[in-house]
């Protein structure tokens, strides 16, 4: 019973990691940058939602508002900050996003306060019960799982079946050639960041549901989401999902049976083992470096 509950918990958690990993992969694909600031960006939009809810708005209105805020925030960050970084040095973009990480943390603490506040869940928080046994699956976790799957399906549709998606893929693949062929590369990059940020905001809202939020609440997700993205291969959205689920279930099992203190170590071990065996991640398709 404990096993089943642990795995169920891991599944819904894994879905959130998958969403976050997906956001990271989207940005990597379009601009070859890992956005370490994705977590605080999601945290900020979640706080915006909380502010709206506390002033009386309906949960769903706040939910949508947070996603819209995510879109705007992602676009702004790309347009005003990321565009100007020197890409040749692979360290600069990392430092830039880390700086943004710290700035957003501080801004959120100043505006929203550092207190731990509760965030409502859209659906019930009592686990489904069959007879005497209660499963660690609440209506909210079902919602989590379904909406992440829906978002992924939508994204897949966008990228594979629409012109816009084709444009974005082209711009990511080879900026110069795409430009020559008439693609508005700059706009596409902004759009890529904006979409990724929406997905990130979604994961922020899902994690917050029925829990405590505070400026650092997403920090753990940065690491585990990043590991999930790398696990699946930074170039593969499907890999992000698989990686997320793998992470969620594994870490839940470790936490339940071995102790929560060993969870980050487990994440590290999983990451290192996978990278040593398949340096590009599980689903990598790009050619590996040979040195």
């Amino acid at each position, binding site marked *: 019973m404990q096993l089943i509950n642990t795995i169920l918990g891991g599944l819904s958690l894994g879905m959130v990691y998958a969403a976050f990993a997906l956001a990271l992969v989207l940005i990597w694909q379009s601009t070859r940058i890992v956005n370490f600031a994705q977590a605080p960006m999601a945290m900020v939009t979640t706080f915006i939602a909380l502010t709206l809810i506390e002033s009386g708005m309906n949960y769903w209105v706040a939910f949508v508002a947070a996603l819209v805020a995510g879109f705007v925030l992602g676009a702004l960050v790309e347009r005003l900050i990321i565009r*100007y970084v020197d890409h040749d040095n692979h360290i600069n973009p990392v430092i830039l996003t880390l*700086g943004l990480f710290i700035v957003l943390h*501080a801004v959120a603490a100043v505006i929203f306060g550092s207190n731990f506040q509760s965030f409502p869940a859209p659906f019930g928080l009592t686990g489904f019960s069959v007879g005497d046994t209660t499963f660690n699956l609440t209506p909210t976790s079902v919602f989590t799982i379904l909406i992440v799957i829906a978002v992924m399906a939508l994204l897949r549709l966008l990228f594979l079946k629409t012109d816009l998606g084709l444009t974005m893929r082209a711009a990511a693949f080879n900026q110069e050639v795409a430009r020559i062929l008439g693609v508005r590369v700059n706009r596409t990059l902004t759009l890529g960041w904006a979409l990724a940020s929406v997905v990130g905001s979604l994961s922020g809202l899902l994690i917050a549901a029925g829990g405590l939020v505070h400026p650092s609440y997403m920090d753990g997700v940065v690491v585990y989401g990043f*590991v999930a993205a*790398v696990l699946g291969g930074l170039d593969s959205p499907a890999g992000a999902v698989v990686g997320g689920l793998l992470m969620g279930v594994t870490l839940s099992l470790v936490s339940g049976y071995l102790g929560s203190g*060993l969870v*980050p*170590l487990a994440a590290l071990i999983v990451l290192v083992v996978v990278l040593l065996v398949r340096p590009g991640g599980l689903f990598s398709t790009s050619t590996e470096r040979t*040195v």
Partner: protein
Amino acid sequence: MSALLSSPILRRTLLALVLFVVSVFAIDLLSGFRQGQVASIAYLAIAAGGLTVLTGINGQLSLGHGAFMAVGAYTTALLLGRWENMPLLLLLLISIVVTMAVGAAVGVAAARLHGPYIAGATLALAIAVPALAIHFKDTLGGEPGLRVPTRDVPPLADDALFFLTGTDTGTMQWLATVSVACLIVTFLLLRNLSESRVGRRWRAVRDDPVAAQLAGIDLGRSRVLCFVVSTATAGLAGSLMAMITRIAAPSGFNLVLSLTLLMAVVLGGLGTLTGALIGAVLLSLLPTFVTNFGSGMGLSDLQAAELAPLVLGLTTMAVVLLAPAGLVGSLLRWRQQARLSRS
């Protein structure tokens, strides 16, 4: 004399000695609180120095150096808990060696990774190590951490310092002097290393791994060596930190430490030791300065406290975008250009 001055290594050593003597006097003049600040700056600069060499000269990005500081700190805390009067030198050496061993293990894995992958792995390391301290709470003290007993000043040192300064030596003064001495020695060694053939190899590996390998450099070995050196400095820094803050607790080695260490290094100038020192000074002194400024401007205590990381983050972003070589790096470059345009 001129023969002495012509060898860079001897020149630097002489300089180091002079600096040390100057510092002893300067520290003696300070109040207890300021001595503590000097000690803090010193150990941060040691860690920053190792990190700037690793990331700036060898091109390996480490987001988890706080974890290595933790290893050094906990080793020191455990040793002092068992043998309260262990000789200082031995204590520091053991802490360094243990950290190097861990660093070697991590470095071997890290050498195969690059770019975002090593960033992610070291990020995971940054939270894994403190979590271990919480998990093994019986030996490692859990969340409250391990208290580090304050040691008395060894009589030999007390006499030696009295000889130089004519006053008694307080505990904090002793720690500050030791930290600065370690800083000087570390920077001397790092400088010598980076100017030597080993350092040149590190740069080659960073700039063009393929060419380097073709030239016969063993990439893996070179990377691991640099990684181990930088973790040794982190271990030393952690060991000093444990003695100065009198505690080794998981909350002292959180993600923010690793990230701010990296930011300090970038601000100062990646790859330059002076930059690392400046970064450490900024990291230590800027927060209090900014917080007081904020309180003075009428902000609440909480808001003023958040102002410091805000300023740090914004400055880092500005530096990365506008002057990616950092403060010192940009200064050097500007001077080089000025010289070129003059000639």
